[in-house]
């Protein structure tokens, strides 16, 4: 079933009784060419690109709960490609280009809205760092504009420009950045993958790996039985270490909780995404009107999908400092997601040291924007055993070889990335 304006009108006049199921809820078969563990955005995108680009349709995505119920449904929906380091810039721009064509490609409204991402700066040193990052982006063909105070004042007159500690001196703007509807991204990929023959299996939790005598992974053990597979791809960010431990692997990753917040719905006030990095705060406004905002991770290892109050206070203080008007808005909800904090703040898309087992992990707090390119690159790796050209830097062994990609320059201290 293709979605179109004509279909919508026809269904509207027939009482919306004829819509078909968006995707098939499959029952596991005995064997597949590829089993992907994790029915989030990355896993479903991987399945879709395996089927579409590589013609591998004998694929299952297994998910312990319901699809999109983990971090795919817990993020703040921001898309951007404003990265400055070799290894990151081209990959995230590949993702941005995929976002730009995603809805036509999937025939699904993912509400991709390029409303701009503005990073504020407050000192000469920070401006210089932003100028350097902006230049690196432009050299890779990514759009970036360095704005002065007057430009920012024009875009967001309600900011606290004359804060004594953090006066707003300007910002780095990526106009092509913005937001997308995270649930729709999951459903869109699920529908497109399902249409191409991929089995999406929910309530199917991984309990172990099927191994041969020499250690090769040849399938998965699940709560719904054993499933053989020629290759197994793991895309379970937040729980990557737990799953890797089932195969006897240790990863350069710690699990941390990241909180996010949404206010009651308000009239349109914030045009795009505004980040106040110096104050550990960023904000955007959803199409429904809620102010969606967040800040730092809580800072200690956690598998509890809820945070503690000090971070709530810290985020709200940051918001009040840069945008005093939000003090009048009422907080509607807050929630937490468990993220893979890697040792250099960058992801891993690579073969594991174990034959038959492939890793997609370490997305820190930035996995949502990467969803399309992550799926494309992981599918390429699973299909060809070679890294996709924009993802060659995301090797698992880069920590041993010293080729780390540390945008923030914090070193091996995951809670500071």
């Amino acid at each position, binding site marked *: 079933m293709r979605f179109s304006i004509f279909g919508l009108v026809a269904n509207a006049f027939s009482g919306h009784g004829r819509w078909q199921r968006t995707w098939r809820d499959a029952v596991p078969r005995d064997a597949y060419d590829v089993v992907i563990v994790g029915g989030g955005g990355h896993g479903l995108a991987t399945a879709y690109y395996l089927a579409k680009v590589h013609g591998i349709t004998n694929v299952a995505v297994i998910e312990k709960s319901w699809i999109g119920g983990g971090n795919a449904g817990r993020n703040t929906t921001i898309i951007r490609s404003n990265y400055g380091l070799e290894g990151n810039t081209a990959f995230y721009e590949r993702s941005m280009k995929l976002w730009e064509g995603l809805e036509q490609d999937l025939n699904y409204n993912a509400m991709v809205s390029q409303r701009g991402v503005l990073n504020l700066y407050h000192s000469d040193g920070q401006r210089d760092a932003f100028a350097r990052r902006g230049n690196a982006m432009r050299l890779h063909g990514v759009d970036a504009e360095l704005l002065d105070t007057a430009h920012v004042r024009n875009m967001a007159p309600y900011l606290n420009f004359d804060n004594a500690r953090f006066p707003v001196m300007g910002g780095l703007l990526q106009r092509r950045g913005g937001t997308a509807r995270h649930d729709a991204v999951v459903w869109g990929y699920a529908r497109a993958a399902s249409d191409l023959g991929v089995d999406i299996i929910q309530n199917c939790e991984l309990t172990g790996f099927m191994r041969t005598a020499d250690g090769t992974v040849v399938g998965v053990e699940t709560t719904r039985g054993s499933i053989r597979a020629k290759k197994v791809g793991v895309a379970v960010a937040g729980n990557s270490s737990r799953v890797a431990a089932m195969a006897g692997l240790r*990863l350069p990753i710690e699990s941390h909780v990241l909180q996010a917040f949404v206010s009651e719905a308000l009239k349109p006030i914030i045009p795009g995404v505004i980040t106040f990095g110096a104050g550990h705060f960023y904000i955007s406004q959803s199409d429904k009107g809620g102010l969606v905002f967040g800040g730092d991770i809580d800072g*200690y290892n956690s598998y509890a999908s809820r945070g503690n109050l000090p971070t709530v206070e810290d985020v709200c203080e940051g918001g009040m400092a840069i945008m005093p008007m939000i003090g009048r808005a009422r907080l509607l909800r807050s929630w937490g997601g468990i993220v893979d904090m890697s040792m250099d703040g960058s992801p891993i898309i690579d073969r594991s040291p174990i034959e038959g087992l492939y890793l997609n992990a370490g997305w820190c707090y930035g996995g949502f924007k990467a969803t399309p390119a992550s799926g494309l690159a992981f599918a390429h790796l699973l299909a060809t055993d070679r890294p996709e050209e924009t993802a060659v830097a995301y090797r698992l062994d880069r*920590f041993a070889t010293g080729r780390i990609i540390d945008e923030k320059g914090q070193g091996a201290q995951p*809670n500071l990335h």
Partner: protein
Amino acid sequence: MRLPCPYCGQRDSREFVYRGDAAPTRPSSEEGMYDYVYLRDNVPGPMREHWYHAQGCRNWITVTRDTRTHRISAAVLAREDSR
């Protein structure tokens, strides 16, 4: 979350700096350095970890905390912590 500092008693977690898993120990040679610096067990469950009471007694303490529930079962001074 409050941490039971052995010297100061129950104190707000904001007074502490988190250092992470207490299990890795510095190897005497370059061999094992990669494991020590980068690899973590990242356990879901009780975990021994180092916290520094920066805004208190300035002791390093070893806290045993369940990473799924934040329940704390033990806290001792790191220098008295028998491994």
